[in-house]
Structures are given as C-alpha cells and as structure tokens.
C-alpha cells in the first residue's frame, strides 16, 4: 500500500461520508458545512490527480463562493420558528433504489472495461499542464470560443441573479 493509495482511500472515505451527511442531515446549516468538507475532499483528490490548478480553483469557486452563497441563502430563507419539519420526501426509498441501481450499473460497466486498471503515465519532461491549459483556452484553433461563451454565460448569470433577486418595493 503506497502512501498515495492510503491517502486516496482516506480522503475518498471522508468525502463520501460527508456527502452522505449532506443529503441526510435535517439541519440545513450543518448540511452546508458538510458540503464544504465534501468540496474540500474533492479538491484534495484533484491534487492527487496532479491538476493543482483545479484544486485551488475548486477551493476558490466552490468553497469560497458557492458554499458561502448557499449559507447566505439558507440563513435568509429560514422561518422564524425553528421547525424544519421532515426534510426528506415520503418517496425516499424509491430514490435510494434508483441511486443504488445507477451506482451498480456504473460499477459493472467500469469493471468490464479494459482500460480500467490503467496507471498514469508520468508527464514528459518540460510538460506543464498549467501552461498548456492557458494556451488552449486562448488559442483561436483550440478552445477560445467555448471560453468566451462561458464568460458571456457568467455575465448573463450575474445580471440574471441581480434582476431576479431585486427587491421591487
């Protein structure tokens, strides 16, 4: 068991446990904090995948913005009486069965796939994935157009969120 495998098993166990707590806990703010732990675990996995940029981007975007936005939304939409009521649908057994079936199917297909046990090839010397990503995002013959469209999407979301949440008093 190499140290990397130990780290992976530990981190993935904590992340999946936290994700389970997110979907089952009744207290919404606690759920948001468990979500932060899940997102942090995923960031550590990105580091293990040698995608360091994505690890820090995950922390900045998800934990630093999205999780805080969710906490604000939860705090702004609580009723005065602290009675959350049943937080889970009456049809939750069907949902659990669907989730388990989907998981089983994916695992079955992964195990039957030839390349499932592949190991990562080391990067060739001088290969900097960060630099290549930067070049790919702004090269006209690579991914410039999706990049620009994503920025327009963010602008539209920004304007949309402001307009929707505007308090027309």
């Amino acid at each position, binding site marked *: 068991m190499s140290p990397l495998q130990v780290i992976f098993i530990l981190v993935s166990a904590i992340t999946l446990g936290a994700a389970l707590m997110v979907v089952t806990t009744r207290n919404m*703010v*606690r759920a948001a904090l468990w979500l*932060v732990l899940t997102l942090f675990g995923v960031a550590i996995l990105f580091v293990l995948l040698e995608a360091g940029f994505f690890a820090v981007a995950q922390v900045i975007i998800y*934990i630093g913005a999205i999780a805080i936005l969710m906490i604000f939304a939860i705090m702004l939409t609580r009723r005065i009486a602290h009675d959350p009521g049943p937080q889970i649908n009456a049809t939750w057994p069907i949902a659990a069965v669907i989730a388990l079936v989907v998981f089983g199917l994916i695992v079955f297909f992964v195990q039957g796939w030839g390349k499932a046990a592949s190991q990562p090839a080391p990067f060739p010397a001088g290969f900097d994935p960060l630099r290549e990503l930067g070049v790919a995002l702004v090269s006209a013959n690579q991914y410039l157009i999706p990049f620009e469209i994503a920025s327009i999407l963010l602008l539209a979301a920004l304007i949309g969120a402001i307009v929707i949440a505007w308090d027309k008093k």
Partner: protein
Amino acid sequence: MADPVTFIGQWLESILVGWGLSSAWISVIMGALGVLVLGGGVLLVDIFLVWVERKVVARFQDRLGPNRLGPFGLFQPIADVIKLLLKENITPQGADKFVYNLAPILALATVIILWAVIPLSVTVVGSTINVGALYIVAVGAIGTLAIIMAGWASNNKYALLGAFRMVAQMISYEVPMVIAILIPVILAKSMSLADIVASQSVWYIVLAPIAAVVFLIGAQAELGRAPFDLSEAESEIVAGFHIEYTGMKFGLFYAGELLHALTFGGLFATFFLGGWRGWGAETYPILGIGYFFVKAMFMYWVIMWIKYSFPRVRIDQMLNFCWKFLTPLILTVLSITAILDKLMSGVPYWIYVLVMLFSNLVILYFVYQAVGRYARKERQKVADPEKVQVNFRVRSSTPSQAS
C-alpha cells in the same frame, strides 16, 4: 554556515535513510517535520507580534505602551496568554457547539497555511506549487467561511450581522486584490511565488505601483482593519462576530488577526518588494530570511500606520469605493500592463521598467483628474446653501383655533 536550514534538513534525511525507510515515507516524514517547524515558528512570531502591536499603537498615540513586564515590556504577551488561558470558557446557550469551537481554529489555521507558499529565502520555501498566487486567494476564501461559522454559531443577532458585514466586505475586496496579484504574475510570467521573487531584479513596486497600492488597500479590507473595521466597530456592534468568544478562543481570533496582518505584510514584500532579495542573499540564504522578515515587518508597520491614522468608513461608502473605483481602476491597469508586456517582448529590461512605470504614472494622472472632478461635485452638493422651503399656510380667520 551559509544555509543552516538546508544543512539541518539534509542531516535529518541522512539519519532517516540510515534507518532504512523507503523514500516515499522519508519524504512524508520530512514534509511533516517541515510543517511542524514552519507552523511552530510562525506561531512563536505571533506572540512577539502582540508586543509589537501594543508598542506601535502606543507610540502612534503618543504614549509609551507596556513597559513594566521585562525589559521594554517584552514579557507582556506572555502575561496576556496566561490571562487568556485562565479565563472561563463560556458557550452561549443555543449555540451549535461543534461549529462554535471549530470557527476560531479554522480562522487561525487558514492564516498559518498561507506560510506554506511564501519563499523565505532562495532555498527555504514550504512548497513550490506552480499556482502559489491562486493558493493565497483560495485560503483567503476559506477564511471568510470561518467568520460566517463564528457569527452563526454564536446564536447572537449582533454576531450574525457583524459576520455578514465582514464577509460582504471581504469578498468584495477580494476582487481588486486578486487582480492586483495578477499583475506581478504577468510581469514574472509565472504564478509560483518562488518564481515571482526570483524574477524581481527590479522590485515590482517600481514596475507596478498602482497594483501595489490597490493590493495594500485590499489587504487592509481583508484584514478587517481600520479604516475598514465595520465589523469590529466597538461603538456600534460591540465586537462583531467574535462577541461571544471568551478566553483562549478569543485569543485565537486575536492572534489570527495579528498573524494575518504580518502574513499580508510578507505577501506584499514577496509580490512587490522583492521578497528575500537583497545584497548577498543568493550566496548566503540565511541573509534572505533576514531581509524577508525586515520587509514583512516594515509592511506590517505600514498596515498598522494606516489603521491608527484613519477613521472608519461606512459600509456603503466602502462597497462603493470597492466596486466603482478600485475594480475599474485595477482592471484598466491589468489590461494596459498585459498589452504593454506583449508589445515589449524583446525590449531590454531597463526600457521595460521605465515604460511600465510611465504607464502607471499616466493612469494615475487620469485617475487624479477623475477623482478631483468627482470630489468637486460632491463638495458642491454639500456646500451650496439649499433654498429653504418655507410653507406659509394661510389660515382662515377663525380665532377660536389654537395655533
């Protein structure tokens, strides 16, 4: 003994190899040792910072500061720590215990882990990740989470309000601060802090003074220090998000705040003042550590100087200033720096430096004109005597009405 840190590190590693461990486990153990040493060292400096803060604020306020305990009051922080440890730990009723206790730990931890990427000398750096500048932003984002946790878990309206205001201020000022960090990244062509320091043959404060000032303002707001200390406004909402914290938990918040200030001083020194660079720092790395701490302490003193000289600003003034002035300004500087950097690819370095400096001065001139016009308009709004509306109501002549 030019490089004691590397010397000790290699000696320890040779011991571990002698015990016959595999190289993977050796790197893990050395990494853990490095974490302990760096974290412990930073916390020890933190205790010293309490003394520095109280002496400096005293001198700014024309008094002496603590001078009874030990020579020049140097043992005062130890007395402070003992006092905080002996205080009663009160948990407010209805507070979420786990989150309540986690918040100060997280607040201090996010400051300590910032030191992992700051290069202390040419050979001493915690971790040379190639996204160091982005890592700093990410850790700042976790810091805002700690504040929300503290505010919410205290089960106190004032704490929650203080936490909301503080978080709004922090995430607003993160935007110009991040863009100001991008400018040294463009100039150094790398996000790794070690590379940024290594390419500062001319300090970046000369190449990008506006970015340096915007970073300083953003740092002042991130730290929650005056003039941006809405959340700690003692006369308004008592102590903001750490109202309900007593004893050592408050001590963690307080120490975290001071250490955060020194860390931002260190970051300013790394990005704009050349980090560990100085005379002879490449051949004698121990000198590099010394230069770095001198620069970091100097910037910490500048941050304190700003704090103890300015009055507080209102939250709407603060947010207006951020979104309507700082963000467009720093975006303009970023665009012009990027364009000039691309246009001057093959140009000798001294011309590059002068052109960058000149462009910054030109932008500063235009900003000065625009701000002057705005200030004149604001002054006219306040200064012109308003015509007083006097409503004469003509009463009908019924004398029985008491008027």
